[in-house]
């Protein structure tokens, strides 16, 4: 009845909400990676969008060239892309830690341009299709739920919560959090902080690659898929503040939902709504919803 009131058929509403939730899952995975990397390295990883795109391409190539199915790619692609992240950190980013953070941003921006340019050169700007590994779906009465979309939401939620658990509740996470606060002191306790930083960067990149693999069957695999997304994710990060892991997850999913709702009720604003929210949050709570004022 409420749907008649709103003048929107429930199928359309829930369909958009689900799509919003999926986008939210990508926002959450990407902003989580950004937050983990920023926490330890004080670098905003502009290459993150390109690494998400590389994740999607890795799964496409694994299937196309080596016949590795989706489920294999879901494990292999993040490992491969995470490894390239480790190389990037060792070769380039590690040289900038003693400098202003802005240089890290500029360097990773340059790297993003290189990666994106190479993929565009190789694959063109039009998308490559990736077959849905979980075709079909089920009718829930109020909406049709495609299996794959449900899988994306559940799986990314599991990955996000596992990351949260690892960082907040395990010994390894305790080292990580300690090194975020006082790297020198943690180093003095005999923990190899530079190696930890390298692995953390690889881990953050792998999270982006997971998002990319998940996105491949939904959106076409496209060299440009990351660059527009990463700017939205920056806004998500500003809204949430990078202080809290759980905060990044909640903000990501929440904003995805809001974006989905906007698509139903005021589609003209759907591409800008997150930026508007960012502006409002900056006016009211500059440190972000979950950030701590400094």
């Amino acid at each position, binding site marked *: 009845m409420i749907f008649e009131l709103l003048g929107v058929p429930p199928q359309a509403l829930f369909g958009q909400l689900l799509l919003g939730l999926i986008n939210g899952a990508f926002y959450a995975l990407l902003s989580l990676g950004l937050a983990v990397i920023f926490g330890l390295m004080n670098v905003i990883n502009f290459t993150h969008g390109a690494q998400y795109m590389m994740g999607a391409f890795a799964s496409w190539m694994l299937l196309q060239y080596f016949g590795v199915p989706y489920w294999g790619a879901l494990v292999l692609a993040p490992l491969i892309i995470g490894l390239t992240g480790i190389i990037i950190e060792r070769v380039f980013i590690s040289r900038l830690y003693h400098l202003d953070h802005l240089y890290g941003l*500029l360097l990773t921006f340059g790297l993003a*341009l290189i990666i994106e340019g190479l993929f565009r050169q190789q694959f063109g700007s039009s998308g490559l299709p990736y077959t849905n590994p979980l075709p079909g779906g089920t009718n829930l009465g109020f909406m049709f739920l495609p299996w794959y979309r449900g899988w994306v939401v559940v799986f990314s939620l599991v990955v996000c919560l596992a990351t949260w658990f690892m960082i907040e509740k395990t010994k390894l996470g305790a080292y990580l959090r300690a090194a975020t606060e006082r790297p020198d002191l943690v180093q003095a306790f005999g923990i190899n902080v530079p190696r930890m930083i390298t692995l953390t960067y690889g881990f953050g990149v792998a999270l982006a690659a997971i998002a990319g693999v998940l996105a491949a069957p939904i959106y076409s695999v496209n060299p440009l898929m990351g660059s527009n997304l990463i700017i939205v994710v920056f806004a998500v990060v500003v809204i949430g503040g990078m202080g809290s892991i759980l905060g990044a997850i909640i903000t990501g999913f929440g904003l995805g939902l809001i974006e989905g709702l906007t698509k139903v009720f005021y589609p003209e604003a759907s591409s800008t709504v997150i930026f508007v929210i960012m502006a409002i949050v900056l006016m009211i709570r500059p440190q972000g919803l979950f950030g701590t004022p400094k």
Partner: protein
Amino acid sequence: MSGTKSKDMLIFAVLMAVMLVAPFAVYPVFLMKVLCFALFALAFNLLIGYAGLLSFGHAMFFGFAAYISGHTVKVMGFTPELGILAGVACAAVMGLVTGFIAIRRQGIYFAMVTLALSQMVFFFCVQAKFTGGEDGIQAIPRRALFGIFDTANDLNFYYVVLAIFAVGFLIIYRTIHSPFGQVLKAIRENEQRAISLGYAVDRFKLIAFVLSASLAGLAGATKALVFQLASLTDVTWQMSGEVVLMTLVGGMGTVFGPIVGAAIIIWMQRGLAHLGEWVLVIQGIIFVITVLLFRRGIVGELIALGNRFSGKKADEAPAGHAHPAE
């Protein structure tokens, strides 16, 4: 200080003298493009080089002012000077609003906020009617300047653009050497200290931001009339990245660096245009090399080299190691 000032003015005079005769050797439209981007980079440099604020969204002022000048001249029949003024006014207002929002965060967040806001402007331009969507505003007429001076001719318009560039340069030069500019540098070096000295830091940042936005708008509004085209390209984040690259390559926080950087990048883009996507890759490589190997940029390195030769103590390096810490 006055020594460097007179040296700067000498360099500027030589530059202007060269530019006065340059169109007889080089295609004027190319020179006008360089001048517009040089002004754009100078405006950007005012923020990063002297206030330590990295704006990753300056394309919004450049591109939106281009739309405004294109629209007012083509549809509303404005003369070029009025069209450009309208573009600048719009950029100034946008600068005031976005600056007010963005200065609430510092450092890296400032960069992300400006980038996000400019993406919002981009989406607005995609949807708005007057921008012409994917087509942009094409065939913007070059009306007579002040209603009398013919600008349809490229050579004539070149001198108008050169005059605009000179005015923009002198405004920026005057600003950075004024007491206001000194306060900006103090904020760049140590914001907490500037606050404790009683400066209304946010107000200084906002004024600098509005000034920079207006001048970026001046560059964009002029560029629209040069190419008789205002399009989405000028509002994209790639354009924001390009002006960062130009300034970085030329030398952040140097007086002439942005001009050198703009000239090099524009020249490179023209020379490599046939390579297609590789241009993007090459720009990325230049970014990486500059950040890793010569952060002071070309002019910054030359100044450092000159200082070493003359045995002077290394001058406080330009923004090279500014620390707008969060």
